[in-house]
């Protein structure tokens, strides 16, 4: 019952948040949405013309999606869940997610999984060297694809039959597959589930937070590059995290300078004109986990489906990655300890 109340509050909160965002847009009349779970849902005058009117009027939105509880039960065997977010595209979310997964799985005693919820642009299969792999179904659900014995991956890329196949889906269909990934994949017992997301603050992000609402999510890693053009989108993502009460583990600044392999001079290809992630973290009181320099071998490794951390372990970028991974592991251990002590108190 306590979980249901908490879920209602979150759905109502997210809907109200979306409406207030619409209100803040000058010149557009606010939908004055009564709220999907209110008595007036679908019936009030302001519901006219809303695409969800029929659904709300039917009462379906008042009932919690049973999948949320099912996902909660399914993921009870997953110790740590980490979302990798940005707001900005092309900053290296998938690159980071993949290498985080590799680094965590380098400890053979840990079970790690990587879930790719970028439905339109699934990069993870290529980056993990799993292009062309297909998903199989068994009695216990969909089997993820294994890179190593202790590293599993799931992506819509495995459900497409050709590299040219486009996933031209609107929001609701994308939400459906995300639900299936969480509920129907046989993840088994995991130490870490890493979720790679697409850029933006839209269906995929709302859905992943909603469907994980009955589980404990350790937090989000925010990826950015140094320029203000990235940071302005990343600040929105951070606001999104705060609004949906998703803790932020820290920020990673990617593409942070380039050292010429010939003359060893550093160039700021993506200049931190507003102080980069360092300034943003200082302003928003967030931990800066590390600054990863540009290294052509990172792009090469991703294209070849290999782990940069194994290919070039002594590079400056690899060392920064390893430090970041250690910070994340420490954060997760502390959060587990806190959760355990909270459970003991009750």
């Amino acid at each position, binding site marked *: 019952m306590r979980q249901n109340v908490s879920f209602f509050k979150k759905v109502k909160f997210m809907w109200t948040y979306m409406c207030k965002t619409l209100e803040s*847009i000058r*010149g557009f009349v606010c939908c004055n949405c009564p709220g999907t779970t209110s008595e007036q849902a679908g019936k009030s005058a302001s519901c006219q013309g809303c695409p969800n009117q029929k659904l709300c009027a039917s009462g379906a939105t008042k009932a919690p999606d049973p999948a949320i509880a099912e996902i909660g039960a399914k993921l009870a065997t997953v110790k740590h869940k980490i979302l990798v977010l940005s707001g900005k595209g*092309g900053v290296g979310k998938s690159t980071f997610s993949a290498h985080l997964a590799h680094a965590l799985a380098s400890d053979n005693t840990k079970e790690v999984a990587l879930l790719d919820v970028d439905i339109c642009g699934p990069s993870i299969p290529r980056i993990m060297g799993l292009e062309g792999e297909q998903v199989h179904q068994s009695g216990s659900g969909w089997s993820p694809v294994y890179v190593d014995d202790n590293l599993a991956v799931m992506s819509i890329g495995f459900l497409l039959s050709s590299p040219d196949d486009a*996933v031209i889906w609107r929001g609701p269909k994308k939400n459906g597959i995300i639900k299936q990934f969480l509920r129907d994949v046989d993840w088994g017992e995991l130490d870490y589930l890493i979720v790679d997301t697409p*850029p933006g603050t839209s269906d995929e992000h709302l859905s992943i937070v909603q469907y994980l609402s009955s589980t404990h999510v350790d937090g989000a890693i925010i990826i950015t590059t140094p320029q203000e053009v990235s940071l302005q989108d990343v600040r929105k993502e951070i606001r999104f995290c705060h609004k949906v009460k998703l803790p932020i583990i820290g920020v990673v600044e990617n593409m942070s300078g380039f050292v010429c392999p010939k*003359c060893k*001079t550093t160039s700021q290809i993506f200049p931190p004109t507003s102080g980069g992630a360092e300034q943003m973290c200082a302003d928003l009181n967030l931990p800066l986990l590390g600054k990863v320099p540009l290294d*052509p071998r990172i792009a090469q490794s991703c294209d070849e489906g290999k782990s940069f951390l194994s290919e070039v372990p002594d590079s400056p970028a690899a060392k920064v990655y390893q430090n970041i991974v250690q910070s994340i592991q420490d954060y997760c251990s502390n959060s587990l300890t806190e959760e355990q002590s909270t459970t003991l108190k009750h």
Partner: protein
Amino acid sequence: MFQKADASGLAQVRHVVLVLSGKGGVGKSTITTELALALRHAGKKVGILDVDLCGPSIPRMLSVGRPDVHQCDSGWVPVYTDAQKSLALMSIGFLMEDPDEAVVWRGPKKTALIAQFVSDVAWGELDVLLVDTPPGTSDEHLAVLENLKKHRVDGAVLVTTPQAVSTGDVRREITFCKKTGVRILGIIENMSGFVCPHCSECSNIFSRGGGEELAKLTGSEFLGSVPLDPQLSRCIEEGEDFTQLFSESTTFSAISSISQTLLSSLQTA
């Protein structure tokens, strides 16, 4: 909310070009901005419609700040970057009270807003309207096409970086274009090598050759490559006109050449 949009705001727009990718962060907004500036440099009247609702980058790139958006009898008045009204812009970035506020909308709301953008902006007379899109093949892209159906869409340029991870997504975008009947005007490869300003060594930071290979593979025209250029990045950051400040640079030559090829393609269609 889902009534077919009347595209009268586009009645005097000669050509509409979508700037697509499939992959995020390849430089769609940068390329849109630079193409617009290059076309204006060549004497054309240009408009930019920024339909990236979650990450509207163009206002900053053109240094227009956060102006008030007004209405006239024919609809929303776009924001002009200059007194001559040679470059018009409409972006959701103009409509937000707080620039750090996230637009956390599901598909149907995005679709509805894009319908208004397309139908209710009084663009006036334009030679080219460039439509900057977010990455992907989803609600925004379908909404733009559905609402532009009454007006002609000349086609799309696709932006990629050289790496396979990027071209892999752009291949899917090409499929999207084929399925929705959008003509592919060509492929632009961005971040195509970095020439060290100190020793002139060229480093292929994001691999090499992917754009041309993709064009060959898909039977599309390769429009050209734009190198990684810290001066371009800086202009984009500061909202300065790269085409004015660095008109002698190889980067500008590349952009200018691409814009000329694009213009020829539009005029002969």
